[in-house]
C-alpha cells in the first residue's frame, strides 16, 4: 500500500471517528485538528487546464485560482511542477510518464482538467489522480456562465479538500465587511479570497459590524439610519429585505447570533452604560445578561452555544471575560497586558482570538485558550489590527488593519503565517465577518 493510501486511510479513520463523536455528543470539540504541527500536508501538483476552445488566458486563470485555493487550504503542499521538470499547461491528456515522474518527486495527488465552452456556458472538467497511477480517481464537470468561473474553480478546490480530509473546504465561503467608497460606510460581501465584492446597503451614512446568521441567509449589523440613533438591523442577502430588530436608544452594537440561531446577543446602553442583552428570536423576549457599572460589549459565542466571551472594563481597562449563556458564572479570562478586546471564539472551541495591546502600544491580534493557560500573539508590526473573525475551518483569521496606512481587510493563517490583503481601492475597509459553511 502506498504511503498516500496510508495517509488517506488514517485521515478517514480520524474523520469517521470525529463524525461519530459529533453525532453522539452534539459537541464540536472532537473535530479533527488538521493544523496541528505534526500534520503532514499532502503534496499536490496542478498539471494545468487544457483550454483550446476557451477564452484566451482563462485556462491559466483557472489554474491560478485553484493553486491559490489549495495553498490556502493548508491541507495540501503545492508542488512547483515546472521546477521539477514536469510539463504543465495545455497538456492534452496526461501521459503515463508524467505520473511516474510525479511519484518519483514525492507528489501524491495530481490535478488536470479542461476548460471549454458549450453554447453560452463555460464547462470546467477537473480530474484527480493519486498514487502515481494514471487512473482518474475522481472527476467533476461544472458548467455555467463565465461570470461564475471562479466559483466553479472554488467548488473543485473544496471537492479536493473534502476528498482528502472529509471536511468541507472554505473556498466558497464569503466575507461580509464595511467599506467606504464614496464617503459613506456601507456593508459589502465578497468571496473569501477578496474577489467579487457586492454592495449590500446604500444608506449613505454609516453601517457597522456585520455578523452572519448561522444559516448564512442574513446579516445583522448596527445601522445609523437617522444619523442620531443606532439600530440593530437584519438584512436578507438574497432579497435585500431589511428590518430593525432592536431600537432601544443609546448604543446598539456588536450583535452576535447563537450557533443555533435562536438568540441574538448584543450590547446596548439604553439603561445607562453598555450592557449585554439576549434577544430570543422566536419570542422576541429581551433578557439582560450583564449588570454592573462598567461597559460590557463584543459578545462571541462558544461553538457549543453554552458560553459567551465578551469585553468588559469592569476591572479598569478592557479585558476579555467569559460567562454562561444565561449570564451566570462570569470570570475574567485575560490578565496579560492592559487592553484586550473584541474576542472571537474559534469554530473548534480551542482558541479565542482578540485584539491585544502590546508593550510597545500597538494593537495586534492574540489568541488565548478558553482556560487562559495558553496565549500567543498572532500579528506584529505597525498599525491598528481589529475585528478578528475565524474561517469556518478554524485555519484562518480575517481582520482589519491600518498597517499600510488606510484600513484594509487581511487574511492570515491562525498560526500567524501567510498574511494576505483582500481589499484594494476605496478609502476604508473594516469589520470583516467570515460566513459559516
Amino acid at each position, binding site marked *: 500500500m502506498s504511503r498516500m*493510501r496510508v495517509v488517506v486511510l488514517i485521515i478517514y479513520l480520524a474523520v*469517521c471517528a470525529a*463524525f461519530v463523536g459529533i453525532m453522539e455528543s452534539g459537541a464540536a470539540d472532537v473535530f479533527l485538528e488538521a493544523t496541528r504541527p505534526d500534520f503532514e500536508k499532502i503534496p499536490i501538483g496542478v498539471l494545468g487546464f487544457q483550454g483550446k476552445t476557451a477564452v484566451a488566458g482563462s485556462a491559466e486563470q483557472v489554474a491560478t485560482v485553484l493553486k491559490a485555493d489549495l495553498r490556502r487550504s493548508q491541507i495540501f503542499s503545492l508542488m512547483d511542477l515546472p521546477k521539477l521538470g514536469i510539463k504543465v499547461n495545455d497538456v492534452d491528456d496526461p501521459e503515463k510518464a508524467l505520473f511516474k515522474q510525479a511519484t518519483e518527486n514525492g507528489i501524491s495527488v495530481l490535478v*488536470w482538467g*479542461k476548460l471549454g465552452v*458549450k453554447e453560452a456556458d463555460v464547462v470546467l472538467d477537473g*480530474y484527480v489522480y493519486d498514487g502515481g497511477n494514471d*487512473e*482518474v*480517481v*475522481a*472527476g*467533476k*464537470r461544472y*458548467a*455555467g*456562465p463565465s*461570470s461564475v468561473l471562479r*466559483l*466553479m474553480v472554488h*467548488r473543485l478546490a473544496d471537492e479536493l479538500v*473534502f476528498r482528502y480530509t472529509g*471536511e*468541507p473546504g472554505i473556498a*466558497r465561503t464569503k466575507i461580509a465587511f464595511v467599506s467606504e467608497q464614496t464617503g459613506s460606510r456601507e456593508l459589502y*460581501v465578497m468571496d473569501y479570497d477578496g474577489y467579487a465584492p457586492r454592495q449590500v446597503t*446604500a444608506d*449613505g*451614512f*454609516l453601517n457597522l*459590524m456585520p455578523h452572519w446568521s448561522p*444559516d*448564512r*441567509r442574513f446579516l445583522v449589523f448596527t445601522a445609523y439610519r437617522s*444619523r*442620531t*440613533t443606532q439600530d440593530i438591523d437584519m438584512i*436578507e*442577502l*438574497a*432579497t*435585500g429585505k431589511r428590518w430593525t430588530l432592536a431600537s432601544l436608544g*443609546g*448604543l446598539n*452594537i456588536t450583535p452576535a447570533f447563537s450557533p443555533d440561531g435562536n438568540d441574538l446577543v448584543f*450590547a446596548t*446602553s439604553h439603561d445607562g452604560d*453598555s450592557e449585554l442583552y439576549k434577544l430570543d428570536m422566536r419570542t422576541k423576549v429581551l433578557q439582560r445578561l450583564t449588570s454592573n457599572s462598567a*461597559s460590557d*460589549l*463584543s459578545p462571541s459565542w462558544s461553538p457549543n452555544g453554552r458560553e459567551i466571551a465578551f469585553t468588559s472594563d469592569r476591572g479598569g481597562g*478592557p479585558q476579555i471575560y467569559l460567562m454562561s449563556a444565561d449570564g451566570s458564572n462570569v470570570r475574567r479570562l485575560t490578565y496579560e497586558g492592559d*487592553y484586550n478586546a*473584541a474576542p472571537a471564539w474559534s469554530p473548534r472551541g480551542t482558541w479565542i482570538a482578540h485584539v491585544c*495591546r502590546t508593550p510597545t502600544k500597538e494593537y495586534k491580534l492574540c489568541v488565548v485558550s478558553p482556560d487562559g493557560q495558553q496565549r500567543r500573539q498572532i500579528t506584529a508590526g505597525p498599525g*491598528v489590527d481589529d*475585528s478578528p473573525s475565524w474561517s469556518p475551518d478554524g485555519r484562518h483569521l480575517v481582520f482589519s488593519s491600518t498597517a499600510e*496606512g488606510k484600513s484594509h481587510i487581511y487574511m492570515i493563517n491562525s498560526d500567524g503565517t501567510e498574511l494576505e490583503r483582500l481589499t484594494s481601492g476605496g478609502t476604508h475597509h473594516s469589520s470583516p465577518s467570515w460566513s*459559516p*459553511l
Partner: protein
Amino acid sequence: MHTRYVTACLMGAVSLMLLIGPACSKKEIQATSGSKSSERPIAKAGRADSGTAARTEPGISEQDLLKPGKDPSAENLQGDIPGDIKVAKVQPSDSTSRIAEDIRREQVATAASGLKDVFFAFDSWNITEEARQALSSDAEWIKANPNSMLKIEGHCDERGTQAYNLVLGEKRAKAVRNYLAELGVVANRLAVVSYGKERPFCKERDELCYQQNRRGHIVVRTK
C-alpha cells in the same frame, strides 16, 4: 444514457471503496456513492442546513466524471447545487444625496452658532479645564437660543477597537451633556450619539491628528 450514468456512479463507488473502504463504515460508503452527485455527502457531513434558494448560485451545474475524454451528454447535467450565497443587487436609493444635504445644512447652522467643541485626553472622558470654559460659553448660547435642538457627537482617535471606541465616544458625549445640564441646559434639548472612530475629523496618523479626533462635537440640528 441514464444507464451509462448509473454505471459511472457505480464505478465511482468501487474506486472509492478501494480507496477508503477499510476505514469507514458501510453506511458511509453508501451515502457517498448512492446519491446522484457527490455533493450530497458533503452536505450531510459538513453543512447544517442547505437547499434554500439563498444558497443557490444560479447557473452552475455539477456532475461526476470518471474518464477524461468522455463527453457526457447534456441530459446528464445536474440542476443547481445548493451551497453558494446569493446577494441581491442593492436597491438604488436617494438617501445618500438627502443625507449629504442634511449634513451640509447642519454644518452651516453649527458654524454660524459659534458653538465650541471640546477635546479629551487619550482613553479618557473627563471634562478638562479648557473644556469647561468652552462649555460655559456653549451653555450661554444654548440658553439664549431656546428653540434650538442640539446633538452631541462623541468621537475617538483610531487607536483601539471599533467597538470599544463606540463605548468611549458615548461616554464622552454623555460627559458633555451632563456638564451642560449642570450649567442649567435642559437635557432633553441635547441628543447624544457616538461615532467612535468611524467619522474622524483628521485622517493622519500622529498625535496632533489624534487630538483633533478625541472630541465632543456640538451640532445644531436642523430637523
